[in-house]
């Protein structure tokens, strides 16, 4: 890990991020915009599956996942630049480590939803009650994971001594 921190700390990208005062706040703005796209679209998809807006067809609501993916791409790119810009701070941070772990779990859950739950929805399940227990759990887990990921992201600067 020390080697990785050294490599990133001495990279040209790190120098660019740290030597221009406008870069970090700009990255933060894009990170927050990505967060809004991701969470807003995910809430519409997951809560529709749960039954919040019963007039939305479950077969159509996954169109909003495009916005989720765009939001995630924004956040992955800006998040990567945060790490390159200050690797010594992030790699050892407990909140950051748990956040990355939960993002990985959320990614696996998204794959499960795509390949196991979505085909059942496309095959005819039109509301929450017609979905199996694992489908309901996958949807609820998605909301819990992304809520936790946002909270952990905000905690990163405040747990540096832990």
């Amino acid at each position, binding site marked *: 890990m020390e080697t990785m921190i050294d490599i990133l700390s001495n990279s040209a990208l790190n120098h660019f991020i740290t030597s221009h005062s406008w870069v970090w*706040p700009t990255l*933060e*703005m894009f990170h*927050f*915009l990505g*967060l*809004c*796209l*991701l*969470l*807003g*679209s995910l*809430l*519409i998809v997951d*809560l529709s599956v749960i039954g*919040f*807006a019963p*007039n*939305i*067809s479950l077969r*159509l*609501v996954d*169109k*909003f996942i495009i*916005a989720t993916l765009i939001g995630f791409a924004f956040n992955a790119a800006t998040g990567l630049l945060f790490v390159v810009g200050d690797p010594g701070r992030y790699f050892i941070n407990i909140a950051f480590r748990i956040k990355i772990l939960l993002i990985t779990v959320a990614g696996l859950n998204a794959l499960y939803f795509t390949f196991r739950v979505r085909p059942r929805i496309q095959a005819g399940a039109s509301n929450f009650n017609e979905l199996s227990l694992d489908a309901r759990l996958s949807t609820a887990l998605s909301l819990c994971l992304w*809520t936790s990921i*946002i*909270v952990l*992201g*905000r*905690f990163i600067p*405040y747990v540096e001594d832990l």
Partner: protein
Amino acid sequence: MDILFALEDSSIGVMISSSIWGYPIALSLHALGMGVLVGISVMLALRILGFADAIPRSAVMPYWRLAQAGFALNLISGTALFMGSAASLGLNWALYAKFICLIVSLFLTYRMVKVGYRTQGDVNRKDRHLAVAAICSWVATIIFGRLIGYIF
């Protein structure tokens, strides 16, 4: 200025500024509220603009209720955060710019949601402009929100 100092010295102000977890907890709730309010508002605006057009507009508009809950969360957490650093935040121009953008964003989104409930067929050009203005206004709100931490 006395009012700002009084807010900082209040029990909520002291809890936010002096306790270990007060500030990060309020900040986390503010981020979640922002994600819910802005995220859903932008999704509704995108739907007005024709995104996911297979879904009836009026079917997604009930999510505005959830966005309002996000706003309530932000109002409470934002007030607590302000009380924690009232003396410095009270002089921060980015905060006031954010407030103006927030009020404009809420007004535009409220009008846009009414359009979403009312219109069955294609939305007209004016309604599309309303949705674009709402998205731009929300983006400006976030930009000024982030700038608050960089203005001293």
